[in-house]
């Protein structure tokens, strides 16, 4: 990872974060794309689904693109197969004229569709049969990011054209880093323009003797490392990409600009742990660098303050006293639990304040932890209410 300069205030006092008004964001008709990003395991998919459902119940026409939902959550939304087709979710409240469609990303199929849409049937058959294409489209990590961007662009264009949706909510792939998702279009574009592609294409375009000495060295080295057969397959693949994906590059750049447009809102999702918040800080800084509109931070699974008026330290002391006398074991246990929860809540608040000190302009929606897992529409509705905050509940 390259070293990066921190962006943020040079001096800032710790203060409470501004509240992120989720309902205002969803009600704003100018918001037409919401992207949820963040580290793995912080509840991105659930947050996306809950936001989509809340928006739909408030009258928006929503499609939510999920990447890898938990099985039961997917089933509850009627997503039984990974087939790239947005399907209506039944069982939500459509009284206010909203609609809700959901789909799961099938990266291989998305890739195949792009090929089929942009090549002659003969050429498409060739590409689909190329071993490099098969490996890249189905099993190599990283493809998901490209395809999520492609699908987002398609959904947005469909929404514009047909008027079927006025809000696209996107869950991002559980990437190894923020870079993968944001960089996908840029990377593809720079690859297709790069010297390497020209190098691979060179033998197909002109006699080898016309190549410069430097090129000759490289081609020889590649043949030595890859072997002639593999290099030929790679060349065929890249040649196909080049002719096919001129349009792909243009669309990738378009999607990138779409992400920068004011109608897009990024939500950075985190859990109150230091590594997740570190990743969140990284996202916030990265989005600012790319001039992408950040709506705020969703801080999931905060430890709730269950016993108002009882200090954590007092509870611990009280528990110790009961334990010493072997009295009231149940109360002692409850007091212990409270003391631990209070200490955890303090730690989480401390982490959040540190984040806010570094990023004072990032509004936060804080979501308390629920005892159980969310796997039905009622659960999503509950999360939606918690996201909107106490005033809206």
């Amino acid at each position, binding site marked *: *990872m390259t070293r990066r300069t921190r962006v943020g205030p040079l001096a800032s006092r710790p203060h409470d974060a501004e509240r992120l008004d989720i309902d205002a964001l969803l009600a704003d008709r100018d918001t037409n794309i919401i992207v949820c990003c963040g*580290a*793995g*395991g*912080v509840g991105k998919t659930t947050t996306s689904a809950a936001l989509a459902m809340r928006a739909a119940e408030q009258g928006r026409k929503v499609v939510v693109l999920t990447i*890898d939902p*938990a099985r039961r959550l997917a089933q509850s939304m009627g997503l039984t197969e990974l087939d790239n087709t947005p399907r209506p979710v039944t069982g939500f409240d459509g009284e206010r004229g909203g609609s809700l469609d959901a789909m799961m990303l099938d990266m291989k199929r998305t890739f195949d569709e792009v090929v089929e849409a942009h090549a002659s049937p003969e050429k498409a058959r060739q590409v689909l049969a190329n*071993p490099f294409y098969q*490996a*890249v489209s189905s*099993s*190599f*990590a*990283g*493809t998901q990011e490209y395809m999520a961007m492609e699908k987002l662009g398609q959904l947005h264009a469909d929404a514009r054209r047909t008027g079927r949706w006025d809000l696209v909510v996107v869950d991002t792939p*559980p990437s*190894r*880093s923020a870079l993968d998702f944001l960089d996908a279009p840029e990377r*593809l574009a*720079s*690859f297709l323009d*790069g010297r*390497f592609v020209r190098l691979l294409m060179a033998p197909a375009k002109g006699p080898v003797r016309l190549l410069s000495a430097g090129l000759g*060295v*490289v081609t*020889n*080295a*590649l043949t*030595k*490392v*890859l*072997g002639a*057969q*593999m290099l030929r397959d790679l060349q065929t693949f890249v040649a196909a990409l080049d002719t096919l994906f001129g349009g792909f590059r243009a669309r990738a750049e378009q999607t990138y600009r779409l992400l920068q447009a004011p109608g897009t809102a990024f939500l950075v999702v985190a859990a109150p742990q*230091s*590594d*997740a918040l*570190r990743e969140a800080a990284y996202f916030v800084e990265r989005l600012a660098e790319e001039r992408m509109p950040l709506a705020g931070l969703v801080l999931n699974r905060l430890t709730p303050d*269950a*016993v108002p*008026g*009882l200090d954590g330290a007092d*509870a611990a002391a*009280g528990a110790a*006293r*009961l334990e010493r006398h072997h009295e*009231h*074991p*149940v*109360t002692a*246990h*409850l*007091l212990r*639990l409270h003391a*631990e929860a209070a*200490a*955890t809540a303090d730690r989480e608040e401390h982490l959040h304040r540190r984040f806010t000190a570094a990023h004072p302009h990032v509004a936060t929606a804080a979501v308390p932890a629920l*005892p*159980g*897992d969310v796997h039905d529409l009622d659960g999503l509705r509950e999360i939606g209410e918690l996201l909107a905050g106490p005033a809206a509940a």
Partner: protein
Amino acid sequence: MTRLHIVTGKGGTGKSTVAASLALALASGGRKVLLTEAEGRQGIAGLFDVPPLPYSEEKIAVAPDGGDVYALAIDPEAALLEYLDMYYRLGRAGRALDRFGVVDFATTIAPGLRDVLLTGKVYEAVRRKTRKGSERHVYDAVVLDAPPTGRITRFLNVNAEMAGLAKVGPVRNQADSIMRLLRSPQTAVHVVTLLEEMPVQETGDALDELAAAGLPLGTVVVNMARRNDLDDRALTAAESGRLPDKGIRAGLEAAGLDADGAATQAMVHGLQALGQAHAERVLLEQEQRAAVAKLGRPVTELPRLNETIDLGCLYELAAELREGGLA
């Protein structure tokens, strides 16, 4: 005997913490262990509270009763140049590849080649001997903090994929050797989970996929298991919100925490609600514990530590892992 321990788990289950603790546990008793991470997140440096790791093997901790843990954050670009140099002695041509964007292509643009390089570097570290011709390995064990469950099989199997692309030649040979190591009894893939529905389900899915790919399964590590001191009767009562007011009120009084009527009543209600949420989670955990037992793998449980994970915690968890028989 296992020399390569691969640690995976759903995001948020604490797989990096478990990998680090496992490295400490394996090193104790005077052994030398390499802890590597493949995701470029510098998670090891964060856990051990040291500056970001360069692309070199640095000693970052000593284990109880002697033993060293070295750490390495694998940088795919450096790994590729090293690989080209080591196997092909490319020299000037290697630098030319770099200039023409081939290195960039291989490490960032071509999805998947990164995984080939990462697994290749791990393979090299596992097999490295103290000197040429020696039978002694540099590292007694290597622990890999691997990608999460959703991607682990694809990650480990990437060399089989490579073998499909390169029918013959050096790339093919290298890919085959890596797959041989990964599928041998020298390797074990451990899966970290929480006692929650989603991670347990993903653990089961990952175990099935790994087994189908012929990769050797290790232990299921249950992380952050909740402590519970309530007996079954109290737990059932707590779950339905029926812990008696009177008992809690008397407990508060005995603990010296009672106040005037309304404030005490509020505390009683708060504690009941807390007890209810706790019972709900504990009962869910019991259900999931049974589900984990059905996976048919050895299981080791680590307690939930109510503090920010620091080096002290890692030692504590390392001791638990040793007791659990994982090291």
